[in-house]
């Protein structure tokens, strides 16, 4: 009798509650309760253990208070949200409904017509390009699995079951509990032992059925000696009327493997973006997070790496840009739980027009993690006197044989720099733009070329009118 889910959740406790699932017709409605969660699970024809995990997570979500630290989340009304819409529930939104500034940004970035409509959530699906199909054949030949997580649960239930929730359990925090209860979509990536995937896997290619999700669940497993670069999101603004985006990303990097995860987040400026991203790195494995945050109203996101065996390494690169009305609270966590582990964190934040940007991070060294090294570097640029920058680094060092450094600077664009550039005939706004570009360059150079180009264009766009 299998009455236990792999996360130690009692299946008997979470039997169907409300109705005969066979005679059920889904109707979208706002709000969150046991019935909605059961409906989601039913619509997806999930195994019992996943439904139990969802219901267990829901109980935890309802019990747990909203976090009081970081950004102010009091305005989120969890009862005023659609937690699930069938993919076929056309939202009836048309191109005319899309705000003008979003359309303008699409044009300025040179986004193709078909893509624009997809990004704005109107019109049909984005037609996957043929190049994607060729890549897909290649991946399949290597044994790489790259699916949306719903499909993965159907096609590879044993792998999903083995790993789901083992990096971010349902009780980890309130928003992880929410995601676990109502998740839909996200990516599932499995890279077999020794396989190195040369071309970045882009969620952008893969989005074929589901809309860009509100509650994505991503799971990446890198078997020993493998390599993958996963790219999430895109620089174009993602237009959505949903006010909350809460994803969970779990990554397991086994012995000697390397995983890089790149995100450029550019949600429209009404969105609360509250994301839990966590990786565990085993012996000699490397985990790299490259995280750019430009959009959203509020972002709280602290990608973390737990280095649990000797020789594991972590790298976190973070860029945040906060304009009017935005609060970017990104950061990172590096946990040294084994000897000779190494980490480096570089954060660059820019605040302008009353925006608030910064860095919040944790460096933790467990006893016995001898020979560990960590360097954290945070730089902030504040472009006017209405804007704000915060730096909250926490260092908990429980081992003597370590080297831990943290440095941070907050500065303005110096008059000398501006003067120098202007004396060479460069106009002030262009000079400002160049300085900002130089400031984030160490991170932009880590991005795939097309993203780097688009990010620079986007920063230029955000910088417009910042002078005079």
């Amino acid at each position, binding site marked *: 009798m299998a009455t236990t889910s792999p996360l130690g959740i009692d299946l008997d406790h979470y039997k169907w509650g409300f109705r005969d699932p066979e005679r059920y017709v889904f109707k979208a409605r706002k709000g969150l309760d046991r019935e909605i969660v059961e409906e989601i699970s039913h619509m997806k024809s999930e195994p019992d253990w996943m439904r139990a995990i969802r219901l267990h997570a829901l109980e935890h979500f309802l019990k747990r208070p909203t976090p009081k630290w970081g950004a102010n989340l009091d305005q989120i009304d969890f009862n005023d949200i659609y937690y699930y819409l069938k993919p076929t529930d056309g939202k009836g939104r048309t191109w005319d409904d899309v705000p003008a500034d979003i359309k303008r940004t699409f044009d300025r970035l040179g986004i193709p017509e078909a893509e624009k409509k997809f990004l704005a959530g109107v019109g049909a699906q984005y037609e996957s390009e043929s190049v994607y199909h060729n890549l897909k054949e290649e991946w399949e030949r290597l044994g790489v699995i790259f699916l949306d997580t719903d499909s993965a649960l159907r096609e590879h239930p044993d792998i999903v079951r083995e790993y789901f929730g083992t990096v971010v359990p349902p009780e980890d925090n309130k928003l992880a509990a929410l995601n676990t209860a109502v998740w839909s979509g996200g990516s599932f990536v499995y890279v077999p032992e020794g396989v190195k995937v040369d071309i970045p896997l882009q969620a952008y290619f893969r989005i074929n059925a589901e809309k860009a999700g509100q509650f994505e669940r991503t799971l990446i497993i890198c078997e020993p000696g493998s390599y993958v670069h996963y790219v999430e999101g895109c620089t174009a603004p993602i237009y959505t009327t949903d006010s909350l985006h809460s994803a969970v990303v779990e990554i397991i990097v086994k012995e000697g493997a390397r995983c890089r995860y790149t995100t450029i987040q550019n949600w429209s400026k009404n969105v609360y973006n509250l994301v839990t991203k966590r990786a565990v790195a085993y012996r000699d494995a490397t985990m790299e997070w490259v995280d750019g945050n430009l959009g959203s109203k509020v972002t709280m996101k602290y990608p973390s790496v737990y280095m649990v065996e000797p020789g594991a390494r972590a790298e976190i690169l973070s860029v945040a840009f906060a304009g009017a009305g935005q609060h970017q609270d990104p950061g990172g966590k590096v946990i040294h739980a084994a000897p000779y582990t190494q980490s480096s964190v570089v954060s660059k934040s820019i605040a302008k027009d009353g925006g608030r940007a910064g860095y919040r991070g944790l460096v933790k060294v467990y006893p016995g993690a001898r020979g560990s090294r960590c360097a954290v570097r945070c730089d902030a640029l504040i472009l006017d006197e209405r804007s704000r920058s915060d730096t*909250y680094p926490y*260092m908990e*060092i429980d081992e003597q044989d370590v080297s831990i*450094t943290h440095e*941070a600077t*907050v500065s303005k664009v110096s008059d000398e720099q501006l003067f120098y550039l202007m004396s060479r005939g460069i106009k002030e706004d262009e000079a400002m733009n160049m300085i900002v570009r130089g400031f984030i360059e160490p991170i932009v150079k880590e991005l795939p070329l097309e993203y780097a180009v688009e990010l620079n264009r986007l920063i230029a766009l955000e910088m417009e009118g910042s002078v005079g």
Partner: protein
Amino acid sequence: MGQHLTATAAPLAFSRSAVQRRSEALGEPAWALQRRLKAWEAFERLPAPSVTHPEEWRRTDISGLELGMLTLPADGPVESPPAFFGPVAREGAERGGLLTFLDGRPVVDGGRLGEEAARAGVLFTDLASAVRAEPDLVRDHLFSLAPPDEHRFRALHAALYSGGTFLYVPRGVEVALPLVTQAWLGTPAGAVFPHTLVVADEGSAVTLVELFGSYPEGPRALASGVVELFLRDGAQVRYMLVQEWGAPVWEVGSLIRARLGRDASLRSLVAALGGGLVKLDVESHLEGPGASSEMLGLYFGADRQHIDVHTLQEHRAPHTTSDLLYRGAVKDAARSVFAGLIRVHHGAQKTNAFQANRNLILSEGARADSIPKLEIMANDLRCTHGSATSRLDEEHIFYLMSRGLTRQQATFMIVEGFFADLFDRTPIPRLRGYLQARVAEKMI
């Protein structure tokens, strides 16, 4: 919920009537009693801080503190031989005045203010005497920087404070020699609430050194002090506090807070060496343009000591400067917490704010937490912070041993080198030597 602190019934030694008795014994005017009683109400109302709330108390577990086991020492002057602190407090050319306290009680003939300073109108006396003799001056300032309802221990302090220094330096007066206060906790399981109030009037200059110590072994004792430093426009104050409580003392909820007016300058040094557990806040509020504050700190934890220091550099005016350097070492099973915040408010342009924390971990089993935070709401400024935590450099030790030093000598030399820039910036040579000797003792 712990039984001890959260209990609503007040422990025996701490009661409304104890507050009344203390005020009466000190011969206080009615306003002082009223304030104490109001603080007592706040104490009864406020929740006990704990590791779950608020954030500032998350790293220091005081659930082992049982107020019911403590005793309140009696009040009134006491006759007792002073010189608890040996060379630093001894009569000599480097001192312009001395105050001595035993369990918060002023020691008769425990010292006095030099004649020149007294003639210039400087007031340097125990706080209780000042409450009686200078009621207006005291009433306007006392607790105006440290409101009693900030947290439960602040309230307890404001209800039961006794002993501590009152220092007033009139406009334009410069006191050449350092003034010294020494305070000793001698009553087993005693609870002391020393309060220092310094008002440096416009353009004045003064140096105050305060030394705190206690019996070295025995039952748990409590110290919860508040230091309020008022620096009016152009005042220059040097403030040094050396704390070497014995292991039984838990120093909980103490505060050193300074308010700086236009062009005022504060140079402070806080040395936290003793105490089984220390939870201390050190704050500079730069409220006048051109104000500057140097904040130096030294902490050294050994055995099972727990030292938690929170600092704040609060810039509320343009052209202000703060420069903080805290260095700490931990050995054996000691744990240190440094949490520093630089906050630059809107409009505080042309600010320079620096914050550095360095930690040295000397043993397996010791732990150092460092949390250097920035909240910046102005754009035309220079602001940096840095934190580094490291161990003894084995190569460096090996090199020194190859030059003929023993391992212990080599270690000591490295630790002394680690603290050297703080020693160098300690203005009084005698105090410098004293600190060096204390650090050396901790190494053994």
